[in-house]
């Protein structure tokens, strides 16, 4: 598999570390609602079709990327810096 890193360009999957579901949103730190936290920590969606995942370019620029990937074909439709998305940008 090849992931096209927005900084480094196309790189082999061996350079990346999978960092999980990118659709979760971390609850407010002061929240102590156990259900909300439980859902965040343990529940993962496993859609057939498009999914958003975090991949760390650990063997390159060491940025976390949000990769949109089709779970049935493995085709990657977009890659963006996670930081940009977390700051309010869109993939």
């Amino acid at each position: 598999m090849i992931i096209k890193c927005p900084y480094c360009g196309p790189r082999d999957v061996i350079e990346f570390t999978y960092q999980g579901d990118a659709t979760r949103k971390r609850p407010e730190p002061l929240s102590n609602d156990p259900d909300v936290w439980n859902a965040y920590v343990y529940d993962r969606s496993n859609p057939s079709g498009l999914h958003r995942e975090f991949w760390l370019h650990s063997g390159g620029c060491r940025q976390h990327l949000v990769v949109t990937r089709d779970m049935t074909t493995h085709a990657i439709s977009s890659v963006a810096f996670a930081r940009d998305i977390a700051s309010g940008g869109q993939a």
Partner: protein
Amino acid sequence: MTSSRLPRGGRVERSKSVRFTFDGKAYSGHPGDTLASALLASGITLFGRSFKYHRPRGVFAAGSDEPNALVTVLSGDVREPNVRATELEIHDGLVTQSQNRFPSLDHDFMAINQLAGPLFSAGFYYKTFMGPAIGPLRGTRFWMFCEKFIRRAAGLGKAGTAPDPDRYERMNAWCDVLVVGSGPAGLIAAEAAAGTGARVIIAEERPLPGGSLLASAETIDGRDPSVWAREKAAALAAMPNVRFLTRTSVWGYYDGNVLTAIEHVSDFKPNRTKGQPRQRHWIIRTGKTILATGAFERPMVFPGNDCPGVMLADAVRRFALEYGVAAGSNVTLFTNNDSAYEAARALSLAGVNIVAIVDVRADVSGACRDIATAANAELLTGHAVTGTHAGKTLSSITVQHFNAETCRVSGAPREIRTDCLGVSGGWSPAIHLASQAGGKPEWDEDLQAFLPPEPNQNWVVTGAAAGYMDTISVLSDAATKGSAKSRLILPPVEAPMLDASPAPVFQIEPSAKSQKAFVDFQHDVTADDVRLAYREGFHSVEHLKRYTTLGMATDQGKTSNVPGLAIMADARGISIPEAGTTRFRPPFTPVSFGALAGERYGDLRPHRLTPMHDWHLANGAKMYEAGLWHRPMIYGSHGETVEQAYVREARAVRQSVGIVDVSTLGKIDIQGPDAAELLDRVYTNMFSTLPVGKARYGLMLREDGLAFDDGTTWRLGETQFLMTTTTANAGPVMQHLEYYLDCIWPELRVHLTSVTDVWAGTAVAGPKARALLEACVTGTKVDNDTLPFMGIVHSKIEGVPVMVCRLSFSGELAYEVYCGSGYGTRVWEALLTAGKPFDVMPYGLEALGTLRIEKGHVTGAEIDGRASAHDLHLDWMLSKKKPFIGSAMLGREGLKDENRLSLVGLVSLDNQAITGGSHIVTDARPREPADSFGHVTAACYSPALGKYIALALVKHGTSMIGNRAFATDLLRGRHCPVEIVSHHMYDPEGSRMHG
């Protein structure tokens, strides 16, 4: 002699000879021969014994699709089994052996298995190894006893046990276009693609380019097609944007247009130049892939179709045209399509005698008739082969009338004397790579074959692989597929007008009395096995494959796939496309483990050395590998055991002073205006309140509330911290911090850099540690006021800038001295010199571990991913003033459960060692499985206490203190009576390190 070298023809170098052995006997061939062609030229037609029944088998194909002629290549102590004789290039000194026979190929005891035929039918293993369900042996292990012998009888070559001395390499490549195959389609597609300036890699499985052109009686551009191919290939190879790899088999097609290939760099050579690998594993990342992989001829399934002398018609042609070898002196062909006539024409031109052509079709074209006449071969249309007669090789065949519409045999059998039968059951495009890439193959009625699927990645299929079976349409298809912009002028081709579409006949169904009809030669799967699988309810092709093992041998069903499906479809009364096909999976051809491992093992895998590594080695350190790191275990003196050495070292630390290399600790530089805020969020305790020039011990949890890592973090400036992590968690902690900064808290202005390699670290520990530092540190005092507990000073040792932090893992008065790695050894030696008056002693990991066990300090053995801060008595570090990672989950039920394991100490009551990993039980000799209520995480002999001690995680830990139990180790048979004590086993008040 049945097979022999023809007086002329082939591309072997007849002027030179090559000597080799097969089953201990010497033979010779010519450069350019394969083992198969050279042995056939020497009259050898028996190559091996079959998998289950030990039936005699000969060569069946002429390339990578060979199912039968597998041999073992011997080189010194090394044996490589299951090498296809049809691909093995001979060289002087090559030693080969036939397989699956005992004691010899000609006299094989296990051939008796043939008599037990019905016993070994489909599902044999599943039925047999369940053990007898009834009878006197029910419930016994009798079947286990039998299994040994049965498994020994069945099988392919034996793997060697000697280490593989050969060298393998990995190669990474990137290109715009990868062309797989260099037959007519591959060459023209590559030429078209390369003409656009694209970077092109061409991978050809065989030693010579040309594919089917190497054995063609057609002409291209007025010349022998093999000459045309050689010239075309040479011109391509000379282009700067083209890399032409021969002997390179592309075996895997992965996501993102990543393909893998094995290049046989030198395994065909008697000698290798220095540094030359045997095989090179290519990982090719390509923009576009052109699959010009050709097609495999498939066999017909008929009674007795597996005896030596029966082979693919194309193989007979290739042996004659490529190697100048007649596979028989009187050849018969058996076909359901026109391509066998082209083979007959080529063979006849090459000087091979054709006796007859048996065709299942009622009528054939004029072109076919003309060829039969010209070859002086009897043409038997509407006939089929219904039996063979063979000892070690074919002597005659039986033919009968056959109706291709009803697939019924009729009439009296007629015997034809022949020593080689070339069979053609039509052609299957080599769609393996496209299928691996994930597409669903499509059935083509005309070709009676699966065509490649619609591309799901950027690939195209061209030539015979795409279903074009005549050279003219292959060339024009390849030019367009190579590049849409291609303006290549295609060469003229002269070829007879033949039609590759076969009659839809796959099998000549055996009568009750006839011989076995094989579908998968390598796994000995017969047509009857397929029908049995159907009767027993295994209808889906995936079940058929697993139940009968059809297509699961090293040839991955290259010849057996379609005939097997056809027979199943016939049994179910449905069409072949309705039955469907299995998905091909990598590898396309067998790949050696060596090639996959490449250089990533032994000395060549990464080793991580501290700056003082050479000093440790020069001073008697016994090293061990902790992850990738090499660390001193002990510094041994002669005659000392490991235990004596670490006890001596640990005692020196408690009594005077010792130094230990702690460079392996993970170190992360954390800088930026929000650095303190980040630490407050990731550590359970507060760091924003830490003054500059002080360090603090910190604990991190995971989001689920369990302990993750611990270490000290030093505040070097208002906005700069140096975080230390455990050695093992350096990478994970870095990733953890990066994750939160990138994905959760992008608003924090913090930069992280791993500086593990920048700093050499030495811990100086013991009552004399301060005196030692006073003797070498310049520019600052190190007294209690200047350097209090957890204080940091910047100073110099021998002119080298150092940072000294007073912190203790050993429980003694202790310091960590950090300097630039390039000065690590220098500072280490300066510390030793300064400590000489105090008999300073370097100590290794064993002593380090002993000191921390005595103190009850935790490491990765206790922070094992299941333990909470509370379990480890670290609740005091959990701030109530702020949220931190994991704080929200701390209150959940599972973490409050009173049955959780928690940290305690153990003292051995029998004065012998407690073994690591022991379980804590109440009985001295527990039954199996024991009711364990905890386990030992670390154990040692404590010189400070004069006892064997351990740390353990135990249910109801603290309330168990004072109780007795047993630490039991069923594997080692050690049952140690212990007393459960507090984990603070030595100096619980901490007066020594604060002193």
